[in-house]
């Protein structure tokens, strides 16, 4: 009987798979979704991040969120076998009333406090951080947090569901502090011995949209979230969510290229640098085992000349182009712009989610950054699997 039931179950799953078809690459930075990835969440003393999440529906929406700290065990030392990423995870629930937007500063979190004073016009007082209906108790991150935030839409009982009601943004504020590695202020560019030598009123801001994964009709609501793929033992209904992209396409500057805003002359000392923040699609919060991905990067310059390289990321990585390969320098590529196509290698079992950061540095060392959402192409055969501890993914 059990075998019979199992066979029926597989047939049903196969039929469902036929109906659903293979998932398309519908990770998106411009549509509401059921899973939100914020790949770059930083609170390290130099940078802090504001998270914005909105319910785009007319019903109440719940979400289960995970902070994943990808900081090195010893942040001041280079990565290596004795200095791996922490990959510590903290999770919490939020709930949003119809169409409700919310926000929090990651270093502070957002505690439930109905006495938060709203802004008012009399006298002008627009300093009302945390006023509004609190979305739940959002914990602050630890000091020196460099990692990601992931939120999964759930029902009131915590079971994942494909509502596609969430959208989000992350805003990073950078303070002008003294970099111990370069001995210069990170934004002002002047020489410094400590933070007191830098301009305490100088900041920079960058913003990106959260990357959303759209949920499909057939979501069994269990603790194993299947992103793309065909029906299997782990994913009997096939793709519960759309697949992670096969390829990310990044239009970027050659590393160190002269900034066109300053004429773009090769003799100009201004420069533009790019970094990619990358997280795996697959994550197992039950075993807390960090996922590793190996990436193949294929780059074309303006002459259509092609170079390629590989990069690897464990759990979370913020990779400067210069860290990936020397071939991305302006001297090597020979043109201001390049197009890179980034995909996991065939042997890598996880897709990736990524955002870019572009830093423009003047000849005098002044700097400004902009975050960039990259384009996607194709879908991974999948599945990528996010595993939530069962206690967190259903009735308590």
């Amino acid at each position, binding site marked *: 009987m059990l075998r019979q039931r199992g066979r029926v179950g597989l047939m049903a799953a196969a039929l469902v798979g036929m109906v659903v078809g293979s998932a398309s690459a519908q990770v998106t930075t411009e549509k509401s979704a059921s899973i939100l990835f914020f790949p770059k969440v930083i609170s390290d003393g130099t940078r802090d991040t*504001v998270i914005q999440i909105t319910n785009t529906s007319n019903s109440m929406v719940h979400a289960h969120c995970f902070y994943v700290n990808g900081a090195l065990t010893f942040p001041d030392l280079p990565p290596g076998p004795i200095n791996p990423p922490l990959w510590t995870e903290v999770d919490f629930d939020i709930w949003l009333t119809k169409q409700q937007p919310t926000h929090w500063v990651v270093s502070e979190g957002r505690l439930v406090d109905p006495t938060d004073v709203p802004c008012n016009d009399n006298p002008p007082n627009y300093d009302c951080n945390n006023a509004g209906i609190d979305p739940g108790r959002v914990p602050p991150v630890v000091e020196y947090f460099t990692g990601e935030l992931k939120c999964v839409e759930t029902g009131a009982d915590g079971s994942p569901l494909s509502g596609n009601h969430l959208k989000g943004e992350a805003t990073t504020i950078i303070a002008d502090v003294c970099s111990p590695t370069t001995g210069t202020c990170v934004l002002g560019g002047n020489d410094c011995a400590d933070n007191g030598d830098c301009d305490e009123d100088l900041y920079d801001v960058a913003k990106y949209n959260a990357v959303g994964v759209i949920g499909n009709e057939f979501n069994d609501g269990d603790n194993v979230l299947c992103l793309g793929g065909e029906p299997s033992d782990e994913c009997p209904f096939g793709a519960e969510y759309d697949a992670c992209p096969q390829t990310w396409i990044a239009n970027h500057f050659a590393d160190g290229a002269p900034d066109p*805003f300053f004429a773009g002359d090769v003799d100009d000392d201004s420069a533009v640098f790019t970094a990619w923040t990358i997280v795996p699609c697959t994550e197992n919060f039950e075993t807390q085992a960090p996922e590793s991905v190996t990436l193949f990067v294929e780059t074309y310059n303006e002459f259509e000349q*092609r170079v390629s390289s590989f990069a690897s990321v464990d759990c979370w990585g913020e990779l400067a182009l210069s860290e990936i390969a020397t071939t991305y320098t302006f001297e090597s590529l020979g043109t201001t712009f390049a197009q890179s196509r980034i995909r996991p290698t065939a042997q890598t079992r996880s897709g990736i989610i990524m955002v870019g950061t572009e830093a423009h540095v003047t000849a005098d060392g002044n700097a400004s950054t902009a975050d960039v959402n990259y384009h996607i192409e194709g879908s991974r055969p999948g599945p990528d699997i996010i595993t939530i501890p069962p206690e967190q993914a259903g009735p308590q």
Partner: protein
Amino acid sequence: MRQVRWASWMVGLAMALAAGGVRPVAADVTSDRAAAILDWPSVIFAEESFLSPADTFGINTLLQVSNTSEDPVHIHCFYENANPHCSNTGEVCYAAEDCCDPMTGCGLCLPGWNETDFRVQITPFQPLGWLASDGMAGYSTFPPKQFGKFPIDGVSNFGIGGSSNAGSRIPPVPEEPFLGSLRCIAVDEDGIPVDRNVLKGEATLGFFAEDPDPDFINVGKSNAIGIQAIEGAVNDDNVLVLGGPEPEYNGCPNVLIINHFFDFAVDPIIDDGLDSQIVTILELVPCSEDYLRQIPGGAVVQYLVYNEFETRFSTSRPMQCKQFSLLSNIDTTQNDRSIWSAGVQGTLTGQTRANPIGGGLIGVAHELHEQAGLADFNIHFQGDREAPDFIVLP
């Protein structure tokens, strides 16, 4: 402190402008996938000292476009100039007082719209970029390639399969200062639109100054918005149909969703005692444009605004050609009385849902932090319009 001055510059511009003036189809205008039509809603250029002689900052837009396919592609592009002009002098104006001249008296600051078009051939996987102020012309065929020149001339060097940039030239924007947008359409070598979703693009808005010591830069970046062609549906006429019952391209969105700080909200991170405030500029452009008759599209935009208490406000405002406005100037010229004012809403952040009536819209947002500078971001889309939008080519 210089951040504050250039931020004021852009806010001033926004306030001045606001005071002046059968086949299934998906809502797949997109900023994260390659497409056949690209739109950069925000193209801005102004030299130093534009608003006042004391201004030492220039503003410019760096435009990037690339071909994501292994075949060359031609694009037909249109700069849309949305500058208003004085009725008496013909000069560009962003406020009524700009048209008062001791010799001619005061004229009217009239809205304007015209287009300048050009064609470019992009070789396989080729990325290109240029400044709105300068365009792109000539060739630099050996590395290091000079910025502002095309790399492959088809005479001394060739791309894959003999492709090249031969015949390409991008003009500078037609006026300084310039406020407008850019739209590019994938076409074949004869200029006929084609259903090739192979274009992606970006815009980087930069405030910069070279002369002061030290120099200065502040940037924000957003993706061009793509409108994907429906495979096999694009015919060879000059009317491009976006959405509706017989679409050639995907439809424009029914609702545009913007998550934002309410205007003048105090930055929750910067705690410097100066109450560093945040404002947002929303730029909207119509999906429909008639380049043949030089008639810009327009719409009445209905806005629903939600704060963090789930309180709902609404307002509506017509727009034509382009809207470049502080959120808190959409419904009033008195910003602190606006429904987008943090003082009126009572919370720091909000959600605005913009529903265009009578024509589709796409847009982008600029978030200005008084102490921290500029951050651009792409806005979200939901649903698709029942009625089609039309782009009429010359």
